[in-house]
């Protein structure tokens, strides 16, 4: 609360919990990218899709900018965000006061706007329901790893927002970008 206004609300994990979720998310990103995401079958023909199958298909059809956008927003930037959050939480936990992490903090603020894996999860769910009447679809383990990665990211991110709000109050608002 500040000036009668709620600045942040959520689960306060502390640096240990936040670090655990950041690292967990990073680990989960690997099987999410490598294991079968969804398989679809129609009249005996079966097709197994990985996380990046859509990206490669877009690339092959000549929509390269779109392929890059989907790859960045759906996987690479979330992974970079998790890595940045892990670094920040580790620095808090291990007391690395000799390093200046302002650049990493700024990077997190930028990445938060472009890392949108939760939108990809919703898109896949919409597609699965849409395709359900046309082809036989089976969700693979890669999709569940991806969902777990997204959940880990959201929790780690939420904790970072908390710490940022706390820091903002203690430093007179300069960290949040607003004047005190």
């Amino acid at each position, binding site marked *: 609360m500040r000036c009668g206004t709620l600045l942040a609300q959520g689960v306060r994990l502390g640096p240990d919990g936040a670090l655990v979720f950041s690292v967990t998310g990073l680990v989960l990103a690997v099987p999410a990218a490598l294991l079968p995401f*969804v398989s*679809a079958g*129609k*009249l005996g*023909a079966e*097709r197994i*899709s990985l996380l990046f*199958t*859509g*990206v*490669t*298909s*877009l690339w092959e*059809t000549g*929509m390269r*900018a*779109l*392929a890059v*956008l*989907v790859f960045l*927003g*759906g996987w690479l930037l979330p992974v970079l965000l998790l890595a940045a959050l892990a670094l920040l939480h580790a620095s808090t936990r291990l007391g690395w006061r000799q390093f200046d992490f302002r650049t990493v903090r700024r990077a997190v603020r930028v990445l938060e*706007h*472009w890392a*949108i894996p939760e*939108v*990809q999860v*919703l*898109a*896949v769910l*919409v*597609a699965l*329901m*849409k*395709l359900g*009447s*046309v*082809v036989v*679809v089976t969700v693979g383990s890669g999709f569940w790893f991806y969902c777990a990665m997204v959940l880990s990211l959201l929790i780690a991110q939420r904790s970072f927002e908390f710490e940022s709000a706390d820091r903002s109050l203690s430093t007179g608002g300069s960290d949040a970008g*607003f*004047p005190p």
Partner: protein
Amino acid sequence: MNLRSARARFKSTSASAALALAAAVMLVPANLLPVLSTASSGRNRSDTIFSGAVELWQQGLWVLAIIVFTASILIPFLKLLGLAWLLFSIRRGVAGNARRLTRVYAALDFIGRWSMLDVFLVAFLTGLVRFGELSTVTPRGGIVAFAAAVVLTVLATRAFDPRALWPAAPLSPA
């Protein structure tokens, strides 16, 4: 308000206005051109964003139709209207509405990302539904225009500095 602060405000609002205008232009082909085409058992069908939502509704998938309509049609337009409102408010003078307008900005900033739903949907369907003669989904030009419009609206929101809504707040140039 000092000169530096006034310049920074002008730079923030004019960049945001330019990006929002570009997004509005891109939304025209995004909504008129087909975003994907489906070839299934010899039948070809092309869908725009709107006809895709209508098809879901006709299939009885009302919740999905509402989700797609909200994310792909309603949110981009609401975002542009909201940004226009903020920019005009600054031009006319915020006069006591700063707190409410800041909440509007926070809401616009949050909802923008969900417009990417259709882009991910088309990417996923393009990768999965490739059964040759039986059934194939192909992306079409409309989705590129739509993705450009969404990216531009996000950039427009990012370019807008909410401190411009608070006349007493000092604003350092970027």
